[in-house]
């Protein structure tokens, strides 16, 4: 009577073991699948962006023999800078292209031919002549930017086998490009324009220099404001503040600010800094102000963690030697906590670097071709530049957007790597 049910339980358990172990294996697989899905997304995204963007680091150039005809540039022969500046340099390029392809006839075909080179080529010739008027009358081999269509085609992003009406490059243009390529006049070189120029409507002339400088100025403001204030707040809350309702309120506020959507900070910036204080729109100064309010909670929270990791014995020793509280913090606790605080600050800066939504609100989305030179110049930042370019339909801009993303990600990896190195180097176990 007593033994029977026990054997039953044993058989029941044994019978169910297979099922239970199967469930166990299944559950384990679910976990593994979940993780691999997450990792696959990471890999997929990086692969997608790199495969779309790596080609933007090369740029197609066309080398043409240009005869700097003095009859076109300077008919009077006075070398008057004003005349040199206003000469018709496009005519030189047209003449060279016509000499290269003598069989092309008809207005429309000729226009297609002239469009092989980028629209800024005449300006390059002009600056060359202005720099060195000696070259007038001679023939020079000049390297010029190819147009975006040619560039896209040469990079293999337009299929030459599909029907002519479905692609943006015509059959005759393909023939010209092939001919230039065969004669070695069409070459790909490293794309310096991407890093040295501001934004442009022409993809082949567009660069991220302006956005990078805008990001730089914005981050400088952000760091200068949020790091001292963040450190001061962390020190106050951790070392000086009495435990009362007021400090509780501050703490609740900081925790909440860390979770407020970034776009709301943009609304704050628009209403307070621009409409109330009358600061200039689109300026890195305002962007930096907004972003510093956003990064402040990150820095405070990291700073407090760094301060709590300093053992109390250090404080007691300092106080025991007769140091005042401020001396104790300033001479002993803060120097030990600063690496940790800096790590937090760098991570906060990396986040600020990638932030774009609040900056849309304060007008940093304008098309700005000039590279900003100060904190109040109209500017845009790298993520916003990506956003602006992502809207443009040209294939050449897709490529550049991906390249800009790669640059942005490189900066973020750099900053996070720096933070990790700092942490590894200065981490102390007490």
């Amino acid at each position, binding site marked *: 009577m007593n033994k029977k049910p026990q054997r039953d339980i044993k058989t029941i*358990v044994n019978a169910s073991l297979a099922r239970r*172990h199967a*469930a*166990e294996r*299944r*559950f384990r697989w679910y*976990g*593994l699948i*979940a*993780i691999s899905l*997450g*990792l696959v*997304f*990471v890999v997929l*995204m990086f692969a*997608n962006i790199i495969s779309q963007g790596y080609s933007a680091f090369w740029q197609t150039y066309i080398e043409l023999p240009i005869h700097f005809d003095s009859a076109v540039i300077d008919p009077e022969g006075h070398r008057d800078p004003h005349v040199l500046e206003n000469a018709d340099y496009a005519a030189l390029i047209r003449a060279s292209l016509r000499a290269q392809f003598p069989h092309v006839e008809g207005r429309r075909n000729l226009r297609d031919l002239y469009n092989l080179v980028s629209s800024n080529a005449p300006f390059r010739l002009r600056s060359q002549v202005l720099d060195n008027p000696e070259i007038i009358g001679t023939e020079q081999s000049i390297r010029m930017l190819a147009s975006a269509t040619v560039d896209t085609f040469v990079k293999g992003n337009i299929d030459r086998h599909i029907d002519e009406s479905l692609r943006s490059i015509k059959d005759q243009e393909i023939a010209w490009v092939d001919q230039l390529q065969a004669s070695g006049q069409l070459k790909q070189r490293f794309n310096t324009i991407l890093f040295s120029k501001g934004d442009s409507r022409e993809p082949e002339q567009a660069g991220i220099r302006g956005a990078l400088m805008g990001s730089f100025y914005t981050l400088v403001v952000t760091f200068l404001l949020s790091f001292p*204030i963040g450190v*001061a*707040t962390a*020190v*106050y*809350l951790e070392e000086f503040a009495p435990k009362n309702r007021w400090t509780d309120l501050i703490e609740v*506020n900081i*925790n*909440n*600010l860390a*979770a*407020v*959507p*970034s*776009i*709301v900070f943009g*609304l*704050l910036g*628009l*209403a307070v800094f621009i*409409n*109330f204080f*009358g600061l200039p729109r689109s300026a890195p100064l305002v962007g930096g102000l907004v972003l510093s*309010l956003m990064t*402040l909670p990150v820095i*405070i929270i990291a700073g407090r963690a760094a301060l709590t990791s300093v053992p109390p014995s250090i404080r007691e020793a300092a106080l025991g030697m007769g140091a005042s509280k*401020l001396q104790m913090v300033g001479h002993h606790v803060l120097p030990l906590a600063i690496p940790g605080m800096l790590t937090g600050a760098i991570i906060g800066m990396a*986040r600020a670097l*990638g*932030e774009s*939504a609040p900056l*849309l*609100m304060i007008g940093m*989305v304008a098309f700005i071709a000039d590279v900003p030179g100060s904190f109040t110049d109209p500017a845009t930042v790298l*993520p916003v530049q*990506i*956003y602006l370019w*992502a*809207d443009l339909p040209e294939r050449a801009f897709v490529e550049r957007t*991906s390249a800009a*993303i790669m640059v942005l*990600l490189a900066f*973020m990896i750099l900053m*996070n790597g720096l933070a990790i190195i700092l942490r590894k180097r200065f981490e102390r176990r007490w």
Partner: protein
Amino acid sequence: MLFYLFVTVALLSLSSYYLGRKRAFAVAGSHIRNLHSLPSFYGSYTALWCGLPALIVFTVWAALQPGVIIELVVASLPPELQQLPPGRLNLVINDIKNLVSGNIVSSSPDAAILAAADHYRHLQTTGNAALWVIVIALALAGITYGWRTISPQLRARNRVEHVVNALLIASSTIAIFTTIGIVLSVLFESIRFFHKIPVSEFLFGLQWSPQTAIRADQTGSSGAFGMVPLFTGTLLISGIAMLVAVPIGLMSALYLSEYASPKFRATAKPALEVLAGIPTVVYGFFAALTVAPLIRNLGTAMGVHVASESALAAGLVMGIMIIPFVSSLSDDVINAVPQSMRDGSYALGATKSETIKRVLLPAALPGIVGSILLAVSRAIGETMIVVMAAGLSANLTANPLQAVTTVTVQIVTLLTGDQEFDSAKTLAAFALGLVLFIVTLILNIIALTVVRKYREQYE
């Protein structure tokens, strides 16, 4: 100009530090121990006297000067210009400012405006010059005062520490001022909006088409400001995102904390957290240019019509973005469950998965719910992905294959571009911001309290 003044004051302050220190040594004579404080405190004391009053005056002056100058310039304008309605007057002031800064002016300026611009320039030079003189004088006076008051009995350390303490308190209140600033800026504009559009219409209206008439007789002049379609759109996209993020994030966290070897965990966890570090604009680009066309082509292949800016694409990518939030937050929560509870379950013969399902998850449930709520608030407030990948038209639908719009998308579209600041259109953005702020605030507060309560339970 003002920047150089700032630098000058800073340099003066720095040099006065050494002056004060030297003075302290001098008054102490041969007996340093006669000094009340360390010499460096006398230095800081002088530096504070030099820098602090000067900088306060500098800030206040620099903040007020533009306003005062405009008042003066307007007062000096001819009466017929002064009588213009505020909007026109603003245009005139803008013209004057543009003339002063050498920008392009909207219309050819007449004599009165040219004169006003000259006046403006004159006032600006005078003001800046006065500021320089006053600030430098104040700094020098501060140095002198500090220098003269230094004596062995002066409690320099206490004074300096008082000031530093005040500075620390002041910087810690910035967080509060930020919150107040957010609430006030959003609230004031929203109240102005609700004067034009009633609250009930805004909260319960089923139509969203934010146009305002430029002329009274314009067709389609009556804008509709009902936020229900925006809110359902936001919920739809966030819902899709959570459907992706919660299972993947939670299962990853469980696997990493319960099954994975330390080595695997050390590589997989940071790799997963890379997702959290990628800027949202990158996700937006990925969603708009890769995922959305993929889904549309897939739909076409299956004979289903999918909008090119479908909610599904935005939601999926947003879900990917949120995975690390869910996983790292629930990881913390799961690790907080005491080992003894696991051991008890194993001792009763339960397998690992049974322990997780029957013991760990129920114990960690409040914390997990809290972390999911935090993730939801993140999804609702997320902007760039939806701006780039979701639509603009406010459809009231639950079909994930259609285009919907969200609260954040509308805020961005209403506020980017040139608009006058007083129209119902721009004010509507602030009302939406207010709703967004309140909703995320409530979610955050609930989540934080739940998580905190839960932590305390096991501490």
